[in-house]
């Protein structure tokens, strides 16, 4: 923990909150994150279904306790959300949750996790989000009682602080609404709280499309970490009051934006891969504040978080193609504890509504994971190898998710002095490892990616490493007026 204090002071809380949580096992939280050692230090122990610090939630689901559970997400079809459509909105969610639970029963799923990701108007009007939470809660309870379906509900308010430019992170209406949304959803029956938080994104977006490495590092390692500290100390506090699990965050607005842009050939894949690992210190900060996992499904930095902290992680891959295309559809599952579809609109497909279709696919995926676990080491290792081998040689973004690589890089991330130093380390090691893999013909890269590997190395050599010089450089660049330093405690 001590590592943090050097850089981040003031409103940045470093001790882990003593949450009245349902964590399994009785180790003192303090010991878990000393970050002097990896919690998982052998690649072969970074596996699916089992996490050193499992989390119990909902109707007795133990995440990371030896099974992989499906995490189903869904959203509205094309429609507006307002007073006059609200009845229809309620109806949509009512239908979705009933159909989804019914299918889980038919396919005899041993349990499901439902994620409700609020849409912006539901956070701006916190009662709305709470109302839907309540609907989902009731149906899940009904199915537990009548059909014995075990389940847990993750609720994810929107980070509406991102609604102004430059955004206010610690003050103003939007922060208040975000806070209230957590509070009300927790009251209304969430089992876990999450968010896709956006602190630093206003700088990151701009830096990304300019391929500006200094901007990316600053956005993630300084602004991002600072905001995660502020935000998650609050979420942990709310969670403790309502006896719910503060689960985890994701670098979605950062590294997934990069991934999607790389998919559209807008930025090089190597940049997206570097950005992914650069997001680790940022997402980690939530756990230093007391987030217990499972991490958010779309946090592909999850394997790093699992190695560093031992919390269970949710991941998504081929079955989330409905929400974003990717080149990491299989390897993403190598060490997941939940397996998600990310999101799908409630539209009718030939067989059923899309959320039901997604759930069915997730359940079959989980059957494979869980049968492999049940059949023993030989099977689970073999299956895991297929997941890994089938992806990692084709794309650097897949390569950095190989558990071997995760552990190798994570080894370098411990014992860093500050989160910013950790972020620099992540960038450097990732560039090196990708370069080596390319040279060893372990990894294919196309011409543009090779060119960019050089450009990135070049850039990295010219970025000041201490926070104040970096800040100075950013403030004197066009990125300078994108953010408000005081909103990050700077």
């Amino acid at each position: 923990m001590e590592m943090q204090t050097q850089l981040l002071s003031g409103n940045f809380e470093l001790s882990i909150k003593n949450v009245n949580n349902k964590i399994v096992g009785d180790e003192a939280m303090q010991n878990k994150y000393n970050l002097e050692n990896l919690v998982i230090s052998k690649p072969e122990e970074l596996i699916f279904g089992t996490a050193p610090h499992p989390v119990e939630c909902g109707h007795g689901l133990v995440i990371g306790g030896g099974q992989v559970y499906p995490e189903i997400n869904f959203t509205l079809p094309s429609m507006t959300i307002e007073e006059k459509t609200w009845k229809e909105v309620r109806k949509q969610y009512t239908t979705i949750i009933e159909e989804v639970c019914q299918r889980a029963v038919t396919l005899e799923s041993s349990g499901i996790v439902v994620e409700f990701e609020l849409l912006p108007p539901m956070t701006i009007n916190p009662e709305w989000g709470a109302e839907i939470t309540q609907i989902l809660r009731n149906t899940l309870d009904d199915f537990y009682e009548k059909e014995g379906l075990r389940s847990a509900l993750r609720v994810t308010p929107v980070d509406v602080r991102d609604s102004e430019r430059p955004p206010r992170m610690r003050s103003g209406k939007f922060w208040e609404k975000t806070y209230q949304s957590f509070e009300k959803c927790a009251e209304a029956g969430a089992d876990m709280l999450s968010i896709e938080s956006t602190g630093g994104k206003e700088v990151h977006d701009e830096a990304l499309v300019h391929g500006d490495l200094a901007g990316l590092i600053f956005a993630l390692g300084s602004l991002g970490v600072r905001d995660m500290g502020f935000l998650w100390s609050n979420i942990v506090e709310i969670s403790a009051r309502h006896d719910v699990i503060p689960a985890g965050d994701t670098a979605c607005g950062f590294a997934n934006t990069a991934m999607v842009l790389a998919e559209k050939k807008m930025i090089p894949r190597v940049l997206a891969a570097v950005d992914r690992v650069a997001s680790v210190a940022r997402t980690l900060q939530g756990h230093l504040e007391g987030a217990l996992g499972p991490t958010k499904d779309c946090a592909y930095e999850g394997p790093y978080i699992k190695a560093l902290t031992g919390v269970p992680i949710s991941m998504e891959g081929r079955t989330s193609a409905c929400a974003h295309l990717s080149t990491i559809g299989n390897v993403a599952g190598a060490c997941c504890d939940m397996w998600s579809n990310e999101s799908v609109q409630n539209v009718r497909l030939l067989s059923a509504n899309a959320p039901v279709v997604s759930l069915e696919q997730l359940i079959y995926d989980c059957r494979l994971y869980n049968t492999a676990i049940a059949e023993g080491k030989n099977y689970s290792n073999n299956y895991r190898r297929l997941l890994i081998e089938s992806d990692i040689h084709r794309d650097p973004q897949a390569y950095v998710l190989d558990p071997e690589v995760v552990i190798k890089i994570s080894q370098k991330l411990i014992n860093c002095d500050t989160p910013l130093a950790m972020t620099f380390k992540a960038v450097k090691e990732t560039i090196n490892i990708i370069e080596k893999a390319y040279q060893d013909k372990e990894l294919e890269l196309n011409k543009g990616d090779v060119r960019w590997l050089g450009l990135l190395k070049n850039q990295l050599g010219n970025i000041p490493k201490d926070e104040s010089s970096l800040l100075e450089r950013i403030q004197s660049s066009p990125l300078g007026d994108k953010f408000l330093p005081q909103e990050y405690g700077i």
Partner: protein
Amino acid sequence: MRLIEELKKAVIKGHANVDAAYPPDMKGQPGVIDLVNKALEENVELKTILNKGLIGGMNIVGEKFSSGEYFVPEMMISAKAMKGGLNLLEPLLVKEPSQKLGTVIMGTVKGDMHDIGKNLVGMMLEGGGFEVIDLGVDVLPEKFVKVASKHPDALIGMSALLTTTMENMRETIELIRENSLDNKIIVGGAPITEKFANEINADGYSNNAGIVVDMAKNLLKIDNK
């Protein structure tokens, strides 16, 4: 002309001036600003510098991007380098309408904060010779109307990334028409389809920043030479 070819190449490579570190392999060589200055000294016609050198270079950049050779950051750098050159020419160019192709009002609609796609489209339009008035994100229908009424000939471009904000495009278009404005309107963003665009009576739609410049020229009836 060798010089103009050199200028074009500097735009393509995104090399702004002799001191610029980017791209590493052109460090120390003259950049866009240097070459524009040189061309001015040699009395090359302004039109040639502009159309053959600067815009000509950007066109190639656009092609390289479309073919997958270039990424957005490279396009950004070239655009910036080109702008540097443009700044030198501007005071010299007579302020004729012919010189700016036209005006585009861009914005992401009410309730929606996604702006990467919108910015990209804006950049392409600027690169293609348009003046872009960027209203930012979460733009209320009233705001579009207000700005459009000041620029009756401008093209309006709207972006929406959420299925829950798509409908605000319809609302915006209706309000624009109710105010008797007949600006041409184009729309885009991941969830938008051509069908939807037709349904809400937009004049154009594209899911591809590459073709937006041509679309804008067509709609504003600008000679597509």
